[in-house]
């Protein structure tokens, strides 16, 4: 087995797995931010494949391509976050189903499934022991700052 061929094969498989996981997340999650994270996972898989090809062919073209992927991802993140903030201010929710009026005319609406009521866990805050000097609350608070 050619050693470089083995490395190429392994990296391409891992890149494909990352891409597939990103597809699953993008298709199934409803939170807009998590959908965008899934798209970024897909980009990571593609970057890994390009790095592997770059090594296999002894050519810097693949790595230059990954530099541009990172630049475009930064642009994409800026635009997406601006859009998500705007959409969130309109509807008060990050759920994409809040925008289902934009669907095709012949598609049925999404019916929200009935979920069992969830009781939030009781928050247990730590209790601090009383220690130190009792603060003097009776004094005039601004008395020691004459310049204000």
């Amino acid at each position, binding site marked *: *087995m*050619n050693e*470089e*061929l*083995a490395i190429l*094969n*392994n990296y*391409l*498989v*891992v890149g*494909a*797995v*990352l*891409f*597939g*996981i990103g*597809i*699953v*997340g993008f*298709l*199934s*999650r*409803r*939170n807009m*931010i*998590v959908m965008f*994270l899934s798209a970024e*996972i897909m980009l*990571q898989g593609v*970057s*890994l494949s390009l*790095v*592997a090809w*770059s*090594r296999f062919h*002894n050519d*810097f073209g693949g*790595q*230059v391509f*990954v*530099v541009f992927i*990172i630049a475009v*991802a930064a*642009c994409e993140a800026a*635009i997406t*976050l601006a*859009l998500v*903030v*705007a959409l969130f201010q*309109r*509807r008060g*929710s*990050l*759920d*994409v189903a809040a925008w289902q*009026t934009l669907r095709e005319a012949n598609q049925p609406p999404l019916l929200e*499934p009935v*979920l069992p009521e*969830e009781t*939030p866990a009781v928050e247990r805050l730590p209790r601090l022991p009383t220690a130190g000097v009792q603060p003097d609350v009776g004094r005039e608070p601004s008395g020691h700052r004459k310049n204000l």
Partner: protein
Amino acid sequence: MVADWQKIVAVATALGVIGMWLMLPRGGARGRALGVVLGAAALGLGLSQLRSVGQWATDGLFLVLAAIAIVSAAGAVTFRKPVYCAIWFGQSLLGVAGLMLVAGAQFLAVATVVVYAGAILVTFLFVLMLAQPQGRAPSDRVSFEGPVAAAAGVVMVGLLSAVLGGFVTRADTAAWRPTTPSPEARAGGVLAAEHVARLGDALFGRHLVAVEVAGTLLLAALVGAAAIARLATDRNGRPRPAAVSDDETVV
């Protein structure tokens, strides 16, 4: 004629589909542990079919980093709380950066960590804090079409692996071999000691116009993001009324 590795890839794909579906949020926590077990089995089967480079240290390092990247990506996709998703995504980025470093792309490994984990992920966390980071919203508790989505993604991975495995097997056994550069050429090229200088040479020599275009794109994205964020609110920071009614009229 079905080879052994093809059967193993098929079994791993089937296990992966079921495991991924069970791991996605479905309104309750039932079956999630089983999904994790099935997903781990599919991952182990898949990784066992990778090719060995020949040195156990290189192989072990690659397997550990690949497992970190893949498991963290699965966590980022399947966790219910969006904040946990972002944290798992950051860990997945670290795994991918390690893989790039092992492959010899030092600059890209550092750039991935700095740009993604340092800038993009932190901005994401800011926005996530806007709304229900505990994941109690119904939209976080249930996913769209879980089985179909899991099947679509994992079956695609299985097909890609099968095609790739066939390609590598043929390239390994048959008379036809891909023409690869010699190790000496590679050590003087992509794997050279002055890697960053070589990459900069390629970037600012042959791809100079593309670099300028990318800079213009960044500037345009900056202006566009500021414009979008300003258009959404009026001067007092309140959301502007929509030009068309937002109400659910089409049912």
